[in-house]
């Protein structure tokens, strides 16, 4: 029952990520993958955090492209992962970030602006969002 639940209950992407995580932690690979990844993460965090000595926010698009049609990347997990490339570093560094609606593309699809701030600057980020976007949430 346990196996069947996990086999049908988890989608392909979830299974993929579970397997990747298990592999990275498994005996013999922990140092090469997990430990090294944590070290890289610390470097990344230190570097990004140091930029907040000079700047209040770091700004970038929320996604590298406007929204793509449903199903157009499902068969290509890697290109799917790359759509997260602007936002994953908030998870990696643990720093607060916010996505603010910021106009439309040539074909009318919405575009987002991401702002990242120093640790615990959440209130500042919300203030920035209000200043750029106005008080009301967009429809």
């Amino acid at each position, binding site marked *: 029952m*346990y196996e069947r639940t996990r086999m049908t209950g988890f989608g392909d992407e979830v299974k993929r990520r579970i397997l990747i995580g*298990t592999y990275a*932690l*498994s*005996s013999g690979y*922990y140092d090469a993958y*997990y430990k090294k990844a944590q070290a890289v993460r610390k470097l990344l965090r230190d570097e990004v955090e140091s930029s907040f000595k000079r700047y209040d926010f770091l700004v970038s698009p929320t996604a590298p492209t406007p929204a793509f049609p449903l199903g157009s990347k499902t068969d290509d997990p890697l290109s799917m992962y790359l759509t997260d490339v602007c936002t994953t570093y908030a998870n990696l560094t643990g720093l607060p970030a916010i996505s603010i609606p910021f106009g439309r593309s040539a074909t009318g699809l919405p575009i987002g602006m991401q702002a990242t701030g120093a640790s615990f600057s959440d209130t500042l980020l919300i203030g920035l969002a209000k200043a750029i976007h106005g008080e009301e949430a967009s429809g």
Partner: protein
Amino acid sequence: MNYEVIIGCEVHIQLSTESKAFCSCANLFGGEPNTRVCPVCTGLPGSLPVVNRALIDGAILAGLALNCTVAEVTKFDRKNYIYPDLPKGYQISQFDMPICTDGHLEVETDDGETRRIGIIRLHMEEDTGKNIHADDGRDLSFVDFNRSGTPLLEVVSAPDIRSPQEAVRYVQSIREIVRYLGISDCNMEEASLRCDANINLWVHEEGETYATPIVEVKNMNSFRSIRNALQYEVKRQLSEWKAHRRTLEAEGKSTRGYVDAKGITVLQRSKEESADYRYFPEPDLKPIAIPREYVESLRKRVGELPAEKRLRFLETYHIPERDAFQLAVSPALADYFEATVAEYANPRRAANWLLSEVLKYMNATGTTVPALRVEPDALRELLLAVDAGEVSGKTAKEVFVEMAETGERAGAIIERRGLKQISNESELEEIVKRIIAENESSADDFRAGKSRALKFLMGQVMKATRGKANPQLADRILRDHLRA
């Protein structure tokens, strides 16, 4: 050919904290299934653990009592495996930075010597839920999560234990210490004390030494089981060795479960099937820094442990070993004893009284030492009265009960009820002389060799004094005067 038995023990202790290790569910035994659960201990998505400080305190206390070094920084790790009673798919445990390390415990060997058993580590973790298999023939199992998240301490010994009986004594010592600290009930029946053992043999043959494969023995649920399971393993490994000569190097470690009904162990897991737990630091719990002042403040709570106290009682008060054992078991009783004998020259009598009359009263009425209405100095007063011959031992027992019921002092009760024995020699002499004079025939009978006559005469003395004559004194005076 001869051999040595090499044993290491892993003991799991369920702490009797108010709430579970990482959530505020009540930490109690039994109850309707799945009534003491919450999103945290059932591993629901989005739930987050919070450390229960009592778990940390319990670990430090136990570690100090076992002579361990308490870490300056400790952290939790995830131990990953899939099993129905493990709701998160991992157990929050400790891997490479356990809270306590490098301890030891002295245990009696089979020859009556003392052996120091090393304690490699003591760490904190949470318990799993409980699988319950349908007992009505249906192929169904149920999971009760009441136990999930209960705080556990795991104590891992070095492979210093040298016999099954010694292993039992080791576990018993741990149990005594943990119960003394008041942090666990340590009951094998309720599974608040669990034990697995790793055992193999070192076989010495013609100048060479060979190690047999290590076996982890599980499912030993009583002290008797521990002894039987390990004794069986020694025999089994010995005959295995004689038949196949497989060594530890070649074969590694396997897991066997003890089957109490048959007195044997059966293979559960071989080396190839051992799990990869993929330990990594628990990201939801920050590492914990333990200041030295905090450790010292807890060290005061450890106090003197039972083994030390027993030794001190034997050496200082010269009471019988059995009494020392019994007194040292309960901190409250031990303290009461010491307060009584602080200004009393007969510790043996005090110990005897505490362990017979006082304990009898407490058990009969369900009174605890703190609730006892007889203070140590009041007991001392009573004992001194007995020593001085003011009351007989028998009367004193009644007086004690009255003291316990009313809180009245011994002197007052003796006075009020006129219980004072006649221990005045000249007073008794007068009475004895008179009795002898009034019963010349009996006196002659005694002088002629009829010892029963003495009893009659003593009875007369007692009658004349309304039972108050000090029996020993009266006896001596009677005999003296009959001889004359």
